[in-house]
């Protein structure tokens, strides 16, 4: 146990971030400590009670897709970004990647043009689908490289609408 290397991570979920340390089956999340052990296709996560009455285990289902780890405990679902403390995470939208509509939608307004510098969170396009207005925002700071749509156009999911450098 004493010779087990400790792996350090930075985790963010919703608005919260934590420093995480993993030493074999002992996990430290901020100030909280847990013991994690696999059980079948789930993970048992037991909070360390620090001398008090033993806490009950949470049963976690876990699956990952790229950089995001999905966890379900008692029906609550969390999407967690885990960053290795030693390497920077691959940015969410790699250079040259296009932003696309999540569902068939109509472009109501184009708010950015090629060459424009944009900030993370800035709205680039306004889409309309299923009677809702859907802003497409810049996932990071960058420059608009190209636009592939115009106002009034019906667009399909997955097709790049705007490229960010």
């Amino acid at each position: 146990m004493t010779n087990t290397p400790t792996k350090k991570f930075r985790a963010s979920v919703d608005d919260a971030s934590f420093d995480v340390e993993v030493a074999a089956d002992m996990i430290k999340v901020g100030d909280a400590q847990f013991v994690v052990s696999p059980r079948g296709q789930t993970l048992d996560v037991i909070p360390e009670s620090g001398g008090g009455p033993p806490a009950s285990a949470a049963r976690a289902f876990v699956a990952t897709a790229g950089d995001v780890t999905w966890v379900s405990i008692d029906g609550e679902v969390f999407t967690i970004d885990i960053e290795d403390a030693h390497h920077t995470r691959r940015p969410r939208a790699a250079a040259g990647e296009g932003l696309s509509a999540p569902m068939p939608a109509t472009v109501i307004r184009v708010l950015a043009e090629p060459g424009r510098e944009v900030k993370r969170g800035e709205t680039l396009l306004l889409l309309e689908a299923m009677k809702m207005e859907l802003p497409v925002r810049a996932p990071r700071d960058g420059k608009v490289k190209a636009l592939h749509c115009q106002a009034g156009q019906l667009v399909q999911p997955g097709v790049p609408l705007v490229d960010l450098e």
Partner: protein
Amino acid sequence: MRIRRLLIANRGEIAVRIIRACREMGIETVAVHSTADAGAAFVTLADQAHAIGPPPATESYLKIPAILDVARRTQADAIHPGYGFLAENAGFAAACADAGIIFVGPPASAIERMGSKLGARDLMERAGVPVVPGARPDDQSEAGVKAAALTVDVPLLVKASAGGGGKGMRTVRDVSELDDAIGAARRESLKAFGDGTLYVERLVERPRHVEFQVIADRHGNVVHLFERECSVQRRHQKVIEETPSPALTPSLRARMGEAAVAAARAVGYENAGTIEFLLEGDGEDARFYFLEMNTRLQVEHPITEEVVGVDLVRAQLAVAGGEPLPWTQAELSQRGHAIECRVYAEDPRQQFLPQAGKLLLYREPYGPGIRVDGGVQQGDDVSVHYDPLLAKLVTRGETRDAAIDRAIAALKQFAILGLRSNVAFLIRVLQHPRFRAGDIDTGFLDAELPSLIAPSPAQEVDAQTRLRAAVAAAAWRTAQPRTRANATASGDEAATVATLPDPWETLEGWRG
């Protein structure tokens, strides 16, 4: 004429449901599907499957000629329309009849009759079925509609005859608001439906939505299979249904059941249908009013099956094949309690925005008294082309409390990863003191929504622990050496696939 081969003109969980009943009855099944559903569970389960078009429903599941073409080529005796899509399309029912194919449902004339709100109302009034007090003015001038409105007690609703989905409707609480309301309702109705015909109904405050299941054969027999309480709704979309209704006494139930049967007879109904009532008050003094009739099998039919002990799809197929109903009214009774929770691919924290994505992990709960009617499997790509219903979780218990406890426990076991669902939201609704007490009406969800989206202050400590436990689990997984066994056991996405930015991450809220 016994049905030997059935075409299912639908998809997802209801197609699976119908195919299951067919397998038990020795009926061959033909599935039709869009290209998006080529790998779906219902396509795999059917004896044969035929692609009928690209993903959009208008080009596939709603394409009558394509569906009838498959029916002819496969020599299907009958078509089951499920719910939604073409289930209440009188033209489709008529086209089936013309093609000599049995339509598992009522005659086209009944569908048409019940499709007009005003027409249905008139028919029910004449049949002696109570309707919401109101007035339908022949004089459609502003003065004429106003005069009619003044004969109805406030609060009232000015409604568009051609209306639907809440459009062309205005609430009036004081007669001084009438002129504005009539003008606005008319303008909206003309714009949305091209028809400005208005009528007036008393507004039933805090109503319960209680519906009765009916089924009629071709030999003149009509029975009801008791009620379903469907008041837990959001924007007219049902979320949780249960039976029996906590608001009904045996005598009220008997009276409503009789009215439901009378309604079905009045329209010359055949096969399965549902009469929707608005219930005002509860217990012996409650008043019920006909709202509308759904001329199809409903999403929530499983709770009736669980409590009455019948198979409604099987009964539908028997009736469609010309057989008499398998039970008399006297032979039907309710036992125990059943609750259905609709599991939707929606994010309650983003105004219930429909979700799309790959089901990285999908594990249904199971155990005594737990039934899941689902249509998706792990690895499926859930799209937004269709209704976001993933599955129906139906729990049965000896008592209402037992059924609720079971539903909560089952939901906690329902693991859905890869896209957001309303599972946690459903748990909070079931845990809400008003739900436990049976103190619900159609305004319940809207009234309590803020507290249902997020954990309550009392639940906050547990929520924080759970959040950290989830992080611990994620970190443990990340720290493990990546082996094939790890990846496949939990349904992980292949590392190379997810390099495209998730478009859903670029969405931050929306404005309705």
